[in-house]
């Protein structure tokens, strides 16, 4: 009879944590390795708390509810921002691999895994994140459909953990970008039937430097958000709404419009036309800016044809557009 192997009651977790102490290290960071034994179903936060309580009391981090509702414990695990209270160790280190733990990105590090919340909340503040109604009922509540309130749950689920801001690829190169969290929050107000400033909000975020058009559509925020807010999807909806509301003054709009029309006309994308449309036919500096790349491409024999390729039987695509546009 083969011996039964008892199920382990503990699991070894190996962590490599990025440390930083402004007072101590002259601005330098260093890596510290830890190993703890904990319950096999534990989360990354459980293992960090074990480190802090039994191993190294100097490790600084934020955590509170342990139930993914307070938003305190965002940090990078193996390079990607996560809410560590709901990240199970076996999911990120199935074979006992060492986990690399770092503070969230794009935010100033205060100490070890603690980042300053200023970046995040300054962004939030930029969108005037409070209800601005046209009128207030003298008695009772606003009337609104349940569907309209449930629609807002997507944004209300945001616990302001900062994971999206941490991993945003635009914030990595441009601190002026208003960021995914703020835009998702702004979306909530444009969708709230009680808010009276929809047009203004859309226009501001449309016109603003670092506003809705600066998102590069990389989906990192959708990927890392622990609450399903999907900020990029909200940003796309803001763009759709801004266009529908008549905001046609951005190169982002021109880009989208050109693409849409190109496919309508040709079934395919006319890249050269797209580049020129996006710049703007009368925007001489921008057009001149495009020239070198156009010339280089031409010399290499890869300038897209000036008479664009059309897909076979592209009339069908035109008909399809008509049927959709008629329906709207």
């Amino acid at each position, binding site marked *: 009879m083969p011996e039964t192997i008892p199920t382990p009651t503990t699991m070894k977790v190996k962590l490599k944590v990025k440390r930083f*102490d*402004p*007072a*101590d290290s002259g601005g330098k960071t260093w890596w510290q390795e830890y190993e703890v034994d904990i319950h096999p*179903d534990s989360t990354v936060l459980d293992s960090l708390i074990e480190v*802090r*309580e*039994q191993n*190294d*009391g*100097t490790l*600084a*981090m*934020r*955590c*509170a*509810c*342990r*139930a*993914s*509702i*307070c*938003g*305190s414990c965002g940090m990078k695990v193996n390079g990607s921002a996560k809410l560590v209270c*709901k990240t199970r160790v076996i999911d990120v280190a199935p074979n006992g691999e060492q986990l690399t733990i770092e503070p969230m990105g794009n935010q100033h590090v*205060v*100490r*070890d895994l*603690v980042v*300053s*919340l200023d970046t995040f*909340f300054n962004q*939030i*503040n930029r969108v005037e*994140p*409070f*209800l601005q*109604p046209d009128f*207030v*009922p003298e*008695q*009772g*509540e*606003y*009337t*609104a*459909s*349940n569907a309209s*309130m*449930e629609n*807002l*749950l997507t944004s*209300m*689920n945001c*616990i*302001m953990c900062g994971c999206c801001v941490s991993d945003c690829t635009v914030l990595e190169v441009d601190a002026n970008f208003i960021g995914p969290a703020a835009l998702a929050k702004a979306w909530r107000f444009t969708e*709230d039937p*009680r*808010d009276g400033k929809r047009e203004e909000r859309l226009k501001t975020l449309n016109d603003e430097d670092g506003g809705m058009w600066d998102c590069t559509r990389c989906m990192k925020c959708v990927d890392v958000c622990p609450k399903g807010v999907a900020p990029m999807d909200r940003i796309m909806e803001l763009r759709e709404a801004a266009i529908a509301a008549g905001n046609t003054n951005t190169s982002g709009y021109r880009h989208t419009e050109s693409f849409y029309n190109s496919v309508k006309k040709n079934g395919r994308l006319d890249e050269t036309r797209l580049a020129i449309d996006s710049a703007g036919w009368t925007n001489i500096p921008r057009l001149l800016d495009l020239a070198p790349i156009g010339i280089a491409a031409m010399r290499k024999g890869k300038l897209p044809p000036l008479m664009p390729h059309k897909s076979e039987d592209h009339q069908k695509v035109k008909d399809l557009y008509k049927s959709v546009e008629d329906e709207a």
Partner: protein
Amino acid sequence: MYEHDVLIIGGGLAGLRAAVEVTRAGADVAVISKVHPVRSHSNAAQGGINAPLTDRGDDWEGHAYDTIKGSDFLADQDAVEVMSTEAGEAVLELERMGVIFSRGEDGKLGTRAFGGQKVARTFFVGAITGSAILHVLFEQSLKLGLNVYEEWFVTKLIIEDGVCRGVVAIDLKSGEMHTIKAKAVIMAAGGAGRVFEPSTNALICTGDGLSLAYQAGVPLMDMEMIQYHPTTLARTGILMSEAARGEGAHLLNAAGERFMEKTAPDYMELASRDVVSRAEQTEIDEGRGIDGNVLLDLRHLGRDFIEQRLGYLQEVSVEFLGIDMAEQPVPVQPGMHYIMGGIKTDVNGATNVPGLYAAGECANVSVHGANRLGANSLLDTVVFGRRSGAHAVEYIKSVGAHSSAQEDLTSEKARLQALLDRPRGERVATIRDDMARGMTKGIGVFRDQASMEGALENLKNVKSRMGGFSIENKGKVFNTDLMFGLELEFMIDCADAVVAGAMTRKESRGAHFRTDITERDDKNWLKHTLMYKDDEAENGVRVETSDVNITKWEPVKRVY
């Protein structure tokens, strides 16, 4: 120079609601919180907020009676009347601020059923009501430009000639200590869940406010009233809202029986929380549980319904235990959740120390008495948060200049430095664990003389070790290690008061259930226990009692 008219300790629902009120009244106010306001534990409240809307056929006396009955008649009825009459406007006001409450067919606020009430009067946002309200109050605070001392830890109240004049606090980000003077201080620092283990509470719920007031000479009232929530998720202790039961979920034992039939045939799963927790514990103790749990069954509600109305619960169940609630029942057990006891205040949040107010979970008006109804805590925070704010504004008109004393800072700095300088000793976490496990063991769902004496002995042992713990982190910036040591000291105060109250009350009432004295004794014990910090007294706590305020409702036997 840090000076304000009103300083509010705690940035949760009670604190932010008070801040809004004070700002509207035109006084200068600031909130001081050891975490960013949106991290406050208010965000963990899930199910909803009660309010009788009298213009829609509900009647406030119905809510008041349900609350008083739920409290096992320990609640002060004048306070409950205030809460029930102000509830409607309090909730409607939140909606007008932007809370995305669920709606009925008519586009007006919709309700769900909740424990201890036959009328559905609980207004909600999915299963994230606390978070949804907290975030909107935070938005309002941004709109009003509220000054927040974010991540500042209060170590002491400044009491001068018996009057509260401000606080001493550490700015965690720099480690620097400061005095903040205020003409009035509102304590809204939340509960003390971490005094028990396990608990649904966040790691930050360490009874700071309770201890600070206690040290300042304010009595803590009815501290033995500890609420064990019936449905906390197995192994993790995470709260699974009463809303599940409100929406129709069943509680089953190992044999698949809805065991609530035995003790609460009328209200079943929606009996008051203490009744349900005891029923569950009995099933578990008598061998009809599964690995120390009972089952919460939502399957019959259907997937779509669960995802729409109870989305957060499904998220927790799947993420933390890998259980899909639409397919399988969820294992749950009673878990420490809320402390009905707290800083004694009147209906305006005023304590016996002029200039010091309290509101929210840290306060005890008393509206919850010996057991709190679900969805009454959120109501408590906004009603009494508002009232404290309003009253504080009136009070400060009679206060002259700010305090000029500086010695608080010097002595506090020395005290903290002494902690940092201690030689290598025991870890704070070890002492805390020992204390908390002992408290749950001795002051649990069921308790008796022996178990409580055990808790007392354990606490004595723990206290004897308090002089020997050391702080490993000697640095200044974000020294959470030091903070944990200070929080442990706060927790000990709370534990002292809980044990003293529990051993004093010689009856069973609400959440204080003694298996050696199972009956309620209105003749001798229709009273509040009041615990005062007193080094001369036995175990450092002097216990007094006071009468319960009865207006309309004579105490009767509580049957669900």
